[in-house]
């Protein structure tokens, strides 16, 4: 019995391996089908003594990505204001344009109805966690320099962003449009401070009629370029 299983296993292994061999060139992963070099007679191997000095782009440190975290305050319409925190990843496509992904989380408080009514609640406590992600396009509209004292100059950028995403709040995922503006202050070429103001808009019908909610956010962030 055991030997039969072993035979079956071997057969399947052989089939799979031959299949791999047949398909690997199809996927462009196999070696180029160059003929094997003719065997060189000993003693004629060229030993390059001259080291070529070439500038290749991969040797240059490219720093187009920006990764960081932020903390601030966010107002959830009808549900009060609380701390917000999150993370940001950006890729600078040109000196002007960048694309950015952000994730953030805050806690929604009580509506005035819930406070005044005493005990009635509109949503469960679990559903009060407000989590969003956004994919944005940004533009550095006012690049410039900031001066501290007479001897120090720091590069800055005032930028605009707009984009789409989703917000999980009150038990549903909500299609969210967000836009805003920010200020990037580069402490060094690789370390930046951010101040951002954003508005997150989505439709919500939790309080009876459907309306577009404006959820304003202001945060401070730190990012590193890599």
């Amino acid at each position, binding site marked *: 019995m055991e030997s039969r299983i072993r035979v079956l296993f071997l057969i399947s292994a052989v089939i799979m391996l031959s299949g791999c061999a047949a398909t690997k060139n199809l996927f462009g992963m196999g070696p180029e089908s160059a003929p094997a070099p003719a065997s060189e007679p000993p003693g004629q191997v060229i030993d390059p003594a001259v080291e070529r*000095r070439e500038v290749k782009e991969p040797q240059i*440190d490219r720093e187009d990505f920006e990764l960081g975290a932020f903390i601030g305050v966010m107002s959830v319409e009808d549900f009060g204001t609380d701390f917000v925190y999150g993370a940001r990843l950006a890729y600078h496509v*040109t*000196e002007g344009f960048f694309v950015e992904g952000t994730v953030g989380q805050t806690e929604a408080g009580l509506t005035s109805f819930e406070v005044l009514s005493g005990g009635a609640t509109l949503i469960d406590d679990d559903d009060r966690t407000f989590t969003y992600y956004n*994919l944005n396009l940004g533009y550095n509209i006012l690049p410039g320099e900031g001066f501290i004292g007479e001897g120090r100059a720091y590069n800055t950028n005032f930028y605009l962003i707009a984009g*789409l995403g989703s917000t999980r709040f009150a038990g549903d995922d909500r299609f969210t449009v967000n836009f805003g503006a920010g200020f990037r202050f580069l402490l060094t070429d690789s370390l930046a401070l951010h101040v951002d103001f954003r508005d997150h808009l989505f439709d919500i019908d939790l309080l009876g009629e459907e309306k577009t909610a404006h959820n304003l956010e202001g945060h401070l962030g730190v990012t590193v370029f890599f």
Partner: protein
Amino acid sequence: MRNGWILERNTTTTPSTSRSNSSSWTACIVALTLLALTPGHAEAADEDLRTVAVADPYLEMHTGPGRGFPVFHVVDRGESVVIIMQRTDWYRVRATDGTEGWVDQAQMELTLKPDGSEVDFARATLDDFTNAKWEAGVLAGDFGGANIISLYGGYSLNPNVSIEVWGSQILGNFSNGWMGSVNVVHETWPDWRISPFFTLGAGVIRTEPKSTIIQGEDRTDQIGHVGAGFRIYATRRFLLRAEYKSYVVFTSRDDNEEVEEWKAGFAFFF
């Protein structure tokens, strides 16, 4: 200057005559610290590789990597600069006197390697757009009246045919959901700047009715789709993409559902 560094490093030795344990440890730590602080051979060699000579009458150094930043320093023809880093189309360079500044790509392309040949600052072109192996992007649009946000990654088997994996979030008025699919994409003229494609694929869709809607259960169905669209080369490694797909949802009910999708977005190839 670089040789000076190397000499300094070579003369940094641990005093071997010391008998006291603690002092030899101290010496070791001092030596290690010096080694750590001193650029080694590898770094020196690396810097050597990143050194280029100015071939234009002069090289302008800007205070920042972008339009409008003022020129504050000029490096004359024949002098060399070391490239420290690159951000978008700007290079941070250091002149022999230690001054550092940003130089744009157009000027860097007029520098020469130490052996006198031109430096090739590779930049992505239309050719890379046609032949790149990997691609990833973000699209958003309309999926049968609901909003859809999609991420995808693709691998090219050859310039004409590629395989893509998609993940989408669907956000509607009555239900939300997720969708995952695998596509085969065929480009007839991949070398065109605006390259049309056809696509065919299959996957699964997860539908979750909204919490304010009473009836309806979460369900997962299989989908199949056909579609067509355009990939448009924008700049560098950046492309725009717009597409239409027609989905058939194989439901467990009597009738299959048909859904039309329109999407646009951007992507990168690498």
